[in-house]
């Protein structure tokens, strides 16, 4: 069967499963809708968190980015996993003990202030929308290549599916769908990785094949890759190019941002107990690590294949996959010296480079490049969609909860009952899907290319989350002295600083986005770390100059620090 048919079958089958689950696990109360009735077992939640977490950026873009960045790609690998340590150790159990539904709930109650709640809502919505736009582009890429429907129609189909199960099932529906999506996406990621590892290194486990010898036993894979890279004028694969300062700051921003992202934090509200939140974070990271330790291996395999197969090959006899991807415009060959041969060269080569390859296609094209069976190619398409849809759904839920719960119920319309709130939540989710879709449709129509690749768009959400939420939540748990004046000042300064730095270098003056113009050599991707430090320092200074928080707030802090319940009754 052809790739096309396999893709239709596998994508159709997986979509049918998601919809079936949504109908089976329909939400009936606000608690169901926001936190799945706090009834999700830790391992299941771990799996759902992993799917929630691993987006189009992880599945589609990350290995591609790494294969073009070499060792520097580790910022994404460490940045998007290391945050779970912070989450498990510093946030999840305490926020679970606090209960309630959203991150703004915690910020509002802990800092006894509607203003703080409002600032947190704005941060949550801002971060989630930034992130969701990246997912929709991912959906568009997969559809345009594998189903031949055009990016815009692809986005519309994706919107329809997410709309159906997020609006109907709420968190409960999303959780179980995400479990299914995790299974699909991890299977889809591992199958080609194992195949390719076997083909190239004879080792079944990609993580080991990565450091192993080539199948012909001549030399280590990484040696071969380093050699090829140097020969064609690229940087040595296993060495870094970015400055140590920048790598440090980007990694920190991604880590801290991960633990401050509302759609990740909220997943830990869905388990029954505080101790479950801890172990659930462990399971989540284990499930994530399966993909994240495979990705760098895939990156190295794909890069080696790409260099071997395209460099100095006559354009007449390029393989079929090359032509397939050329049609989507994601591979471009321009025969500058007119010799009919593809000169794929790096910045250090003497011959001019004639080949442009979009990094996003590396994972998607990998099975074709390695000549794997057609069903594997279809599987990868289903996996990419699972990754993008699961994350989009989680984000939309955060937006809907922020609007219905934090903005309406706890702000503008306190009198609405559970039933009405649920209706507003569904309405908000619907509107959010339309806005997210509008952004990912309209941008290309206006001729504006989304900034950078999917992974880079997403990277901004991290900087913003790191600079706004993280310090406020951490201080709210670990310092009884932190008051509302401090927290609000910190969040506003952190967010304003980080957002303006990124907007300046990415939108207002993109030409100045060069290391010599950056503050302390920190790129816009890493600036969130500095924003976080500013947030922390300013909140500490302001809180020490203003009155300490009321007695009951200090009691709340003591309450959330202890996993067991009984003292709540004693205190009240």
């Amino acid at each position, binding site marked *: 069967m052809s790739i096309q048919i396999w893709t239709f079958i596998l994508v159709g089958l997986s979509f049918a499963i998601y919809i079936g689950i949504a109908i089976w696990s329909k939400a009936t109360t606000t*608690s169901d809708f926001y936190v799945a*009735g*706090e009834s999700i077992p830790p391992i299941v939640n771990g799996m759902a968190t992993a799917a929630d977490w691993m987006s189009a950026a992880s599945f589609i873009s990350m290995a591609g980015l*790494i294969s073009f960045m070499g*060792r520097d*790609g*580790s910022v994404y*690998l*460490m940045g998007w*996993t*290391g945050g*779970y*340590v912070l989450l*498990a*150790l*510093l946030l999840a*159990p305490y926020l679970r003990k606090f*209960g309630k539904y959203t991150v703004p709930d915690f910020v509002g109650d802990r800092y006894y202030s509607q203003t703080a709640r409002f600032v947190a809502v704005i941060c949550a919505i801002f971060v989630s929308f930034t992130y969701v736009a990246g997912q929709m582009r991912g959906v568009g890429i997969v559809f345009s290549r594998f189903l031949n429907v055009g990016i815009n129609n692809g986005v519309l189909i994706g919107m329809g599916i997410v709309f159906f199960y997020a609006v109907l099932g709420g968190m409960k529906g999303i959780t179980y769908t995400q479990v299914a999506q995790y299974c699909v996406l991890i299977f889809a990621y591992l199958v080609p990785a194992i195949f390719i590892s076997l083909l190239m290194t004879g080792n079944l486990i990609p*993580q080991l094949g*990565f*450091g*192993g*010898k080539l199948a012909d036993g001549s030399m*280590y*894979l*990484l*040696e071969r890759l380093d050699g090829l890279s140097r020969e064609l004028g690229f940087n040595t694969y*296993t*060495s*870094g190019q970015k400055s*140590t300062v920048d*790598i*440090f700051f980007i*990694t*920190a921003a991604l*880590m801290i941002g991960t633990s401050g992202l509302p759609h990740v934090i909220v997943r830990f509200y869905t388990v*029954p*107990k*505080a*101790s*479950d939140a*801890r*172990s659930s*974070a*462990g399971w989540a*990271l*284990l499930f994530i*690590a399966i993909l*994240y*330790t495979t990705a*760098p291996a895939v990156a190295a395999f794909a890069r080696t294949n790409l260099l071997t197969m395209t460099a100095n090959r006559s354009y007449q006899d390029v393989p079929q996959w090359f032509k397939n991807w050329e049609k989507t415009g994601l591979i471009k060959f321009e025969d500058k010296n007119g010799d009919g041969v593809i000169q794929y060269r790096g910045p250090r080569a003497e011959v001019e480079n004639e080949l442009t390859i979009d990094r996003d296609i590396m994972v998607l094209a990998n099975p074709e490049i390695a000549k794997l069976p057609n069903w594997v190619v279809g599987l990868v398409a289903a996996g990419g969609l699972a990754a993008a849809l699961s994350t989009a759904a989680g984000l939309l839920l955060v937006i809907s909860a922020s609007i219905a719960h934090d903005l309406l119920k706890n702000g503008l319309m306190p009198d609405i009952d559970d039933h009405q709130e649920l209706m507003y939540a569904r309405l908000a989710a619907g509107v959010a899907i339309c806005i997210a879709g509008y952004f990912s449709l309209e941008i290309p129509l206006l001729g504006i290319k989304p900034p950078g690749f999917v992974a880079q768009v997403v990277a901004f959400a991290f900087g913003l989350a790191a600079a706004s939420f993280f310090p406020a939540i951490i201080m709210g748990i670990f310092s009884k002295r932190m008051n509302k004046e401090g927290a609000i000042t910190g969040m506003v300064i952190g967010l304003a600083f980080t957002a303006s730095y990124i907007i300046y270098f990415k939108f207002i003056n993109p030409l100045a986005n060069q290391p010599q113009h950056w503050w302390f050599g920190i790129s816009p991707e890493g600036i969130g770390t500095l924003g976080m430090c500013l947030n922390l320092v300013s909140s500490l200074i302001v809180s020490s100059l203003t009155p300490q928080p009321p007695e009951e707030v200090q009691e709340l802090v*003591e309450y959330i*620090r*202890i*996993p*067991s*319940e009984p*003292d*709540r009754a004693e205190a*009240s």
Partner: protein
Amino acid sequence: MGQSLQKEKSVNNKERYWQKNLQYLAVLLAIWFVASFGCSILFVNQLDQIKIGGFHLGFWFAQQGSIYVFVLLIFIYVLLMNRLDKKHGLDDQSEGLKRKAEPKSNPEVESVE
């Protein structure tokens, strides 16, 4: 009198529990920092001098090792804290069961109704 003594004892117990928790956090986060920012970023070039199989050690830490360390750290913390919770009688095992019996999560609000 006896009651206030008991209350003081419970406050001390919680204080000791929290201090111990902070100690665990300090040690585990130090390891977290060394594995990621230390081995994989600050000292990556030095570690790259060492080769294991096809990997330079610094490169391995940056793309593989640090992630394994992260997973281990969380599970170690889970074990340590579950033990600590029990030791101080502050574990939430019984609550989970209690909660399952009453489906709504916020008993106080219920009782006000």
